């Protein structure tokens, strides 16, 4: 191997791939930064659809039968599409396709992903999966209403809304998404393993990259389970096999199926589904760590433990899946095993929470908007985590299963929390994309509206769950055990949900406005140490680094360093240059 080839993707700027027309620059772009933005805009757009769907659901729950366009079938379809879009097409795509793509090359000091073309393909395949998904709103029968868990047999039997075209489009869309994710994911892991700048050892990587890295591996190993179950269900539906379908009577008719196991689907689904929680959570953990460190001007407390915890959580997340199936009639020992592993996984998770708190402890806390969202995340995540501990125990889960307590739990832990981090991250990295700040006042308004609003939505839901209000119900009808006051509570929740939804519009407006008119941020406005802020051009241009890729001399957390000018040392500053920083400081003191 010649020297030239060794630096092929490092120091050489490949002129042949330099985009010059609008089309190659912004549409068929192979630049990771553009692809990241394409991913993000698409994800946020479908996310808004899911948000509107949740608003519609809330209208029905808060004010039953006031709105004629919601009937029991469409309610189920909205629940399903809302859940699936939020988990897969918004969070997974935005965290890994969006932030992963943007930050990996910049934070590890690479010029781009190692396979730019594959990266571009990944985005367009993702877009295709979104289009297939959305198209199911327009086919006869509408989208599937099977719940985001898609459990057979009901998912593919008539009687369930969208049991013909809807469910097929959903399964096909998921399969396409998985292909897209695999293309992207292979890129992320190979880039992290093979294209780091000189000196960027694994243990010098910012925690953001660690989170994205482990989450991507989880995704690569867990999505196959969803793929497998999707394919087998398509076969059951289309060619009449019986992988999941037992002998069954549907609307008075005996069907041709026999011998299949619906429980098998549940195992496959949750073998994917639980790691999915961490596919969403780990990048969020990583990003929030970095945001906290930067805005508290402190090195992250227990960096190594943070890395170990990410790796440990990643490993453990594959052996807890059956805690979603306690009510499926499993062997008690089996349940015992999964309850135990579930409680064990709480240890590294709690450790991370302590480390965030200890990072804040006596830090120089700047209550910027990113920091507010990061602190908000610590609240919501701890909250959701604690209810998770409760549900992890079989005896507690049995009565609460399929009630609004579960809805409240998973929204706190994997709905609100990652979204809080996403907001923190967007406010934090927006200047890197555009050279401008997001508007601060609107940002604070957005934070308080979202933070207090989500509490107003989800705290009461726990209580509804205790009362026994079931999830995925269009209406409660007449029940003896649920008091009238529950309806009042539901109306209140709906009002909060509408408010929270509207507050997000303020955020979108802020994004658009600030892109063009926001206050100029200048270079490295948060005074961060990590490489993405140290590019030659600001905001970073094509190829990221100008003439030479940076060389890394330290970890990413040298904040509040005594004597050094500006109190922090970027990762690419060598020990000799540090001396210069110090003497520079002394010089300026003498000047005064």
């Amino acid at each position, binding site marked *: 191997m010649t020297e030239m080839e060794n630096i092929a993707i490092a120091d050489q700027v490949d002129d042949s791939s330099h985009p010059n027309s609008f089309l190659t620059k912004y549409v068929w772009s192979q630049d990771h930064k553009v692809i990241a933005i394409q991913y993000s805009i698409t994800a946020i757009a479908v996310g808004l659809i899911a948000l509107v769907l949740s608003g519609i659901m809330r209208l029905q729950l808060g004010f039953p039968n006031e709105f004629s366009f919601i009937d029991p079938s469409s309610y189920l379809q909205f629940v399903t599409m809302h859940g699936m879009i939020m988990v897969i097409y918004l969070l997974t795509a935005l965290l890994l396709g969006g932030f992963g793509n943007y930050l990996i090359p910049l934070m590890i000091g690479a010029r781009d992903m190692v396979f730019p073309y594959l990266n571009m393909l990944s985005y367009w395949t993702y877009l295709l999966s979104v289009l297939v998904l959305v198209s199911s709103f327009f086919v006869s029968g509408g989208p599937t209403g099977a719940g985001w868990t898609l459990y057979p047999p009901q998912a593919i039997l008539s009687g369930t809304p969208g049991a013909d075209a809807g469910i097929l489009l959903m399964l096909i869309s998921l399969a396409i998404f998985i292909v897209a994710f695999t293309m992207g994911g292979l890129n992320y892991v190979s880039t992290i393993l093979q294209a780091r700048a000189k000196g960027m050892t694994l243990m010098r990587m910012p925690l953001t990259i660690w989170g994205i890295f482990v989450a991507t591996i989880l995704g690569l190993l867990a999505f196959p389970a969803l793929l*497998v179950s999707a394919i087998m269900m398509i076969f059951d539906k289309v060619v009449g096999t019986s992988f999941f379908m037992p002998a069954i009577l549907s609307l008075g008719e005996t069907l041709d199926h026999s011998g299949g196991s619906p429980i098998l689907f549940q195992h496959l689904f949750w073998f994917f589904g639980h790691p999915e929680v961490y596919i969403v959570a780990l990048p969020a953990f990583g990003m929030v760590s970095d945001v906290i460190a930067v805005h508290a001007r402190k090195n992250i407390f227990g960096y190594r433990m943070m890395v170990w915890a990410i790796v440990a959580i990643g490993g453990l997340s594959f052996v807890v899946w059956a805690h979603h199936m306690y009510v499926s009639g499993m062997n008690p020992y089996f349940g015992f095993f999964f309850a135990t592993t579930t409680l064990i996984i709480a240890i590294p998770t709690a450790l991370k929470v302590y480390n965030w708190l200890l990072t804040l402890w006596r830090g120089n806390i700047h209550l910027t908007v990113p920091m507010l969202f990061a602190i908000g995340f610590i609240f919501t995540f701890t909250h959701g985590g604690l209810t998770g501990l409760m549900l992890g125990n079989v005896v507690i889960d049995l009565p609460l299963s399929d009630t609004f307590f579960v809805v409240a739990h998973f929204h706190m832990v994997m709905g609100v929390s990652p979204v809080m981090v996403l907001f923190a991250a967007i406010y934090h990295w927006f200047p890197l994309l555009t050279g401008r700040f997001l508007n601060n006042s609107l940002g604070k308004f957005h934070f308080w509206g979202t933070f207090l609003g989500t509490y107003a939505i989800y705290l009461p839901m726990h209580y509804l769950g205790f009362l026994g209000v079931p999830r995925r119900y269009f209406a409660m009808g007449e029940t003896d055990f649920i008091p009238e006051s529950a309806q009042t509570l539901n109306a209140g929740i709906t009002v909060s949900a509408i408010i929270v939804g509207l507050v997000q519009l303020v955020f979108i407006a802020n994004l658009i406005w600030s892109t063009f008119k926001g206050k100029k941020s200048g270079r490295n406005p948060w005074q961060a140490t990590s490489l993405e802020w140290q590019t030659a051009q600001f905001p970073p241009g094509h190829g990221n680094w100008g003439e030479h890729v940076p060389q890394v001399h330290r970890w990413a957390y040298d904040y509040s360093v005594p004597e050094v000018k500006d109190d922090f040392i970027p990762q690419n500053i060598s020990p000799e240059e540090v001396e210069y920083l110090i003497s520079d400081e002394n010089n300026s003191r003498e000047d005064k």
Partner: protein
Amino acid sequence: MMQILKTLRIKPWLPQGQETEPFSVATNKEKAASTALKFFLAVITVIFFLFTVTFLQRTQSYDFQALSGEPWLPFSNASMLWQNSIYLLMASISIILANKSADLQSFKGVVISLTATALFTVLFIGGQVQVWQQLNQSGFYIYANPANSYYFLLTGMHALHIVAGVLVFIRCIWLFSLDLSYQTLASRLKLCARYWHFLLFIWLFLFFLLTGDAQTFKTIALFCGF
């Protein structure tokens, strides 16, 4: 493994001597592609592993009718499958030869061995399709029995992976025809070869798995605790 543990014990906040650092200098594409391929093979392994687990469980179901063991069952005589296995084996071998010829910069060798690879791969796929047709003709429809369903499903998935490989393979040849660089061709073929070997291995595994008789399955299931 030890390496990973060692890496994870490094204390990044302490000053570190440059020379002891495990530098991962930005490397060449070949290495990156090799890493990506390793992860991709892991993904495929998980897919077939999960299929296999569900299959083994199903073999113990009351309605499972193994595809061999009795004279009238299709794979009691598996000569077609043996023939296909040999095609795939030949494809695997010729792709190694292609890699070798590219190393030796022999144009003739490259052309012959690449043609052989393509030919044997196509023969394999054709052979698989033929088996599907025979099963259908003799009434072993995909929905008639879980064993049939799994046979079509798993061999179909395997064939799909081969087809995907062929697309990449065609791209290699196309790129070679553009720049005639033996070195890059060799490094690309090395990865193609790894993929072909892997799919050969998966195929042999599936062959064994899908043509088992009831007794074999019973033993395996007992062993795995189903």
